[in-house]
């Protein structure tokens, strides 16, 4: 499953980060690495981006980026 598909209120675990270059690196830098727990907080009023809690802080990212994050 991809992070994009997770419903708000659910907690998931990161399996793998796909994609390449700057965006993949940025995802790692922000603490989204394999085995990290992610709590999906909400979706923005217009349907994108989403907001998550990861490593005890709040992060927002677009569905395009969330698509690259494989979770379970």
């Amino acid at each position, binding site marked *: 499953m991809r992070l994009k598909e997770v419903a708000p209120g659910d907690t998931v675990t990161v399996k793998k980060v796909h994609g390449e270059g700057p965006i993949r690196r940025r995802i790692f*830098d*922000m603490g989204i690495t394999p085995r990290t727990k992610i709590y999906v907080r909400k979706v923005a009023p*217009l349907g994108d*981006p989403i907001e998550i809690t990861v490593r005890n802080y709040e*992060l*927002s990212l*677009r569905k395009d980026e969330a698509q690259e994050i494989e979770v379970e």
Partner: protein
Amino acid sequence: MKVALVGNPNSGKTTLFNELTGSTAKVGNWPGVTVDKKEGKYKKAKTPMDIIDLPGVYSLSPYTLEEVIARDYIINDKPDVIINIIDGTNLERNLYLTTQLLETDIPVVGALNMMDLVEKNQDKINLSLLSSKLNIPLVEISALRATNIKALMEEVVKTTTKREPLNLFKGTKLEKSFYALYDLFVKNGLKQPTFKASKLLENDEKLLASEEIKNLANEIKRIVEITEDSEAEIADIRYQFIEDELSGSLEKSRVLGDLTTSDKIDRVLTSKILGLPIFALIMFAIFHTTFSENFLFLGINSPGVYLQGLMEIPVEWITGGLEGLLEGAGASSWVFGLVIDGIVAGVGGVLSFIPQILVIFLFLSILEDSGYMARVAFLMDRILRKFGLSGKAFLPLLTGFGCSVPAIMGARTLEGERERKLTMMLVPYMSCGAKAPIWALFASAVFTDHGDLMTFGIYMLGILVAVISAIILKKFVFKGDASPFVMEMPAYHFPRLKNLALRLWDKLKGYIIRAGTVILASTIVLWFLSNFDFGLHMVEANSSNSILGVLANGIKFIFIPLGFVSGPDGWKAVVAILTGLIAKEAVVSTMGVLYTNMESEEDFLGEDDATTSLIATVGATFTPLAALSFMAFNLLSIPCMAAVAALKAELNDRKTFWFALVFWIVVAWIVSFLIYNVGGLLGF
């Protein structure tokens, strides 16, 4: 001694910098407020220290301009000590940057910031344990409350010997590759071999492109294979290291998903149904409070307008006092004209709008400080992306409502080159504080009953033109997809009075300095140009025979289709437009000089203050449509020379720079043309 402040965005670096140096660098509660490195002096130590505030970064990867500025400084300029500011409420992610700093041999002192919040959250950090695990001194501070700053600096003085770089790779999959690279770099005499070996394994583009690595490319290829996976591997190794370090040193009282007060506020402010209406309401309330003459629909003046009225009183006093003084001294009529008609009318006109600028800045600062600005990016991203921008571009664009200069500089926080250029080009369309006096003048002079609606409309026009320009520019000039949007949402907190006061004072100071220098000088020059002809004979004040009148009449034809230069006084509007290209504050002061058409001392003494007379003349000169066309041109053309200088410095690209200037003027002309002519056809 050089001390660099390094830390995550929003970790309190700039607050600490201000505390150390007494400077008033801008502080906000959104990631990315410091875009350039700033220097100051810490004077309380025995030997004064140079403090360098580097831009906030999450990592020393080579992708954003800020990261490049920070790492170049650390690696090339080699500070004597690094103060690594670590947000105590967000240890894990903050320590990620620390692991990278520790791979250099530069001494590091960790400043655990926001310890007051950590205590409030009832979390516990075992300082001595963490300090011994990281092998660097740690000091608990609160930059905001200025606690323990002295202890921190004492630790900095003590920590000046080189450190053994941190080796993260022992016992990991990458151990062999790391040592192979490390040995190669040591053999070839590269500086910071641990840092470079680790970065190279991370597939670091900037390092790969550097001369010293290119020279070794063949050997590197022979000994290690760098794959995409090793990048993931290293991020994992770093966070694994942090988790190990933190086990035992951090006790969290909250579990994943628990709601804090900040979370509860956030639930309302970014809710699906209420989020956008609340945002629109906040924006309207700000403009209503600043510019409305019908506050809360009660028929009274809003605080902004009321304060502006108060400000006119001292301006009147000064005018009256100067008039008396000059008369007593028996000044000749030209001195009288220069001082009262030139300087007082020009500078006084600008000064009387200070209250409104301060009020709007106060509101923007509160939004920024409280953390709401980051939510605005969250709310607006979907819309902005349609125009090739990310929600992050909303932050610099919103700053543009204050001043174009920091807004253009703030565009640096954007990741994509195209997006950065596009944002900078759109910044002037956000009506800046210096343009506010123009709207206020026309609101009182021409649109007396609907001043707030007109002002709101002008702001909206700017946004609309920005949207259309963005679509056009994206389609034909800056082609390609929008860059990624991954952004930290800081916790909400009450804006700090000290912060707000500092920021307003800074703004006020800048404005007064400009009024006293650039504006003063330009009003004197303008007065000269508008009272003398080419033979340097004094002519009737503000006549079309004056030097200015002749010049403006010469290029008036360009503006004839725009409707605001008709009649014998038309050239005056041209002059106001021209001085507006230098600084938008100068538009009103120019009009103050040119439109207060008084010829003798008796006239001056019989008149009310300069502002009233300016409002009356402008009201009589401009039709509503001509006024709109005139305002649109001022709104959309080149904002000011300071912004042009900022753009040139930021772009570093001649072609785009000239393109931007021409684009601004052409768009301003086209929009003014449309307003005047389509409005005319519609019968306004």
